[in-house]
């Protein structure tokens, strides 16, 4: 039985085809960059632009070995810092300088230690870097949105093997986020409650898409999953802005992530995936986003996005999220 499901957060439809879905477990997604010339490895600090942040518990000079995490500007940035924010017209078209900032957070000195292999303590350290960079970069008033995302594996868009996360500061609030903000604002105005809180309540009640839960976080396969094994991770207490995450919450988050990576590893192996944080816009001239709820989207990359998705903005997903959750829970 095929189903169309509406994502109330974006008002995008998903088609669930319920195929006899099978896939090959992958045990090693990548072997792209050679270890000796990896710019993210210990001792190769000179190969990157100068660092903007690092964890050096033993002290030591910036841009030298002795770090546990290291943040550097992206050598090949999608957007650049040193530009004016100006707009130009070309006939009916509109363009702007690509002002922004693009950083790489190196999660570990160990080239082969994927996020799946990190200890809970190490994941905690990485999430603290996210929070630190996020808060720091918010100070630049030119930026309206910060996106933290991770591409793991070549198929998911990672061009370097060494475990890293990317952070992009954008001069505009991107469409996908605006969609989420518009829909959740509308819902809040009508129902006087946060749509994400309502979804958490529903998922706890229905249980068939629930994967993990601890005192501060919940992880489930969303009702309107766009791809097999898509996961949403939400703080259970209402919190709009990722920057407000507490140390205790970070511990809970890394614990749930650690468990998730084990479950996913058991079912999928070392699959390529994308991981991203959706939170409120920044520097928005006093606009109130209390109706929003920050969250993590986790998308294993099992195939290419193609014609249908581009034409419609909708998705076709061959695996029911209920089945995905069951598979994850029976390992």
């Amino acid at each position, binding site marked *: *039985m095929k189903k169309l*499901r509406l994502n109330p957060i974006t008002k995008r439809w998903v088609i669930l085809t319920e195929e006899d879905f099978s896939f090959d477990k992958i045990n090693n997604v990548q072997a792209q960059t050679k270890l000796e010339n990896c710019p993210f490895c210990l001792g190769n600090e000179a190969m990157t632009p100068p660092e903007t942040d690092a964890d050096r518990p033993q002290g030591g000079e910036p841009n030298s070995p002795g770090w546990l995490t290291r943040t550097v500007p992206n050598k090949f940035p999608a957007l650049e810092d040193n530009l004016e924010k100006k707009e130009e017209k070309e006939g009916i078209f509109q363009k702007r300088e690509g002002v922004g900032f693009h950083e790489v957070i190196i999660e570990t000195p160990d080239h082969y230690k994927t996020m799946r292999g990190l200890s809970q303590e190490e994941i905690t350290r990485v999430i603290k870097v996210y929070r630190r960079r996020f808060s720091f970069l918010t100070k630049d008033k030119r930026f309206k949105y910060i996106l933290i995302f991770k591409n793991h594996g070549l198929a998911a868009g990672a061009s370097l093997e060494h475990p890293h996360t990317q952070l992009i500061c954008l001069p505009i609030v991107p469409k996908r986020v605006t969609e989420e903000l518009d829909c959740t604002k509308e819902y809040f105005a009508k129902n006087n409650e946060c749509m994400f809180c309502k979804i958490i309540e529903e998922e706890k009640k229905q249980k068939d898409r629930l994967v993990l839960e601890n005192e501060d976080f919940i992880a489930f396969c969303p009702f309107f999953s766009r791809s097999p094994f898509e996961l949403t991770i939400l703080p259970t207490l209402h919190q709009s802005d990722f920057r407000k995450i507490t140390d205790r919450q970070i511990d809970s988050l890394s614990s749930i992530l650690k468990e998730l990576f084990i479950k996913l590893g058991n079912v999928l192996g070392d699959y390529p995936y994308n991981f991203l944080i959706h939170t409120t816009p920044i520097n928005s001239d006093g606009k109130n986003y209390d109706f929003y709820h920050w969250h993590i989207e986790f998308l294993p990359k099992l195939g290419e996005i193609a014609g249908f998705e581009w034409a*419609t903005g909708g998705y076709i997903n061959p695996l029911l999220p209920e089945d995905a959750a069951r598979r994850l829970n029976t390992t």
Partner: protein
Amino acid sequence: MSQLRKDPIIERWVIVATQRAKRPNDFEVDSSKDHSLDQSSQSLSKQSQNFKKRSKDTEIVLDGPFNQKDEFGFHKIVDDGYCVELNSDCDFFPVFSLYKKKILEIKKKKQIKYIVVFRNYKVKTNSRSLSHNYSNFIGLPVYPKNAKRQMKGALNYYQQKKSCIYCDMIAQEKKSKKRFILENESFIAFCPFASRFPLETWILPKDHSYDYTQSNQKQLKNLSLAFKEVLLKMKNLLGDFSYTYVIHTGPLDDCSNNDVSRGYHWYIELIPLLTRVAGFEWGTGFYINPTPPEAAAESLRESRIEESSQSRR
């Protein structure tokens, strides 16, 4: 250096690299993939010869805060004798004629609001039913987000300027030539200003028309020639490549007396698959394109195709 560009129709921003940009022939095309159809997709295509209508229920079923519709749209896969091995002898006219026939058939089904016609050529997708070289027809009981945005953008523009935004775009691209690829009597091909992907190409009818099925024999003939020429130029640059194309046509309801018919313009979007959609695109809905459309169009203009195709016209 990079630039932010806005698609004027759906107001989507794209990041276009202008320095360190990849030239169109910098891409490595993986031709080692096994392109043969697997058995499952062949049997699937047979069972899909008929419309798979599941339920007549048009009500939205509420499930908590969620909306769910049981499928009463359809997905049809048609073996259309597509020219799988591209060369100058390929004839795409039968394929484009078939589309007209099928869409006209579908128009009679009142519950279907929107039709998507596309092909994923040598693309590995999530869903097995889309992973082969057949034409896909998906009829939907709802307007998908992108279609809604396109119609709305075109309508807004029309109501403000009393002209079709696509026609204005064609005029501008013809004049500036920067992103122009080719044209014939009825069609024009160019790389759109806010291209999301390297070598993204739009093929549009030069005469205003919101509805694919209004194309006559001669126009479909010219469409197949323009389409073939673009593909051959791409093949010349990229070798054996995978691509996807989509026909964007107007609503299935008769719009001949309203502004949708005046503001909307059907077209084909053709996208070679050279980059991967990754975390950034998923998270933001906007795209990073490493190849400026001006460079892509220049390479395509200069890409020479074999003589035989010229002589056979």
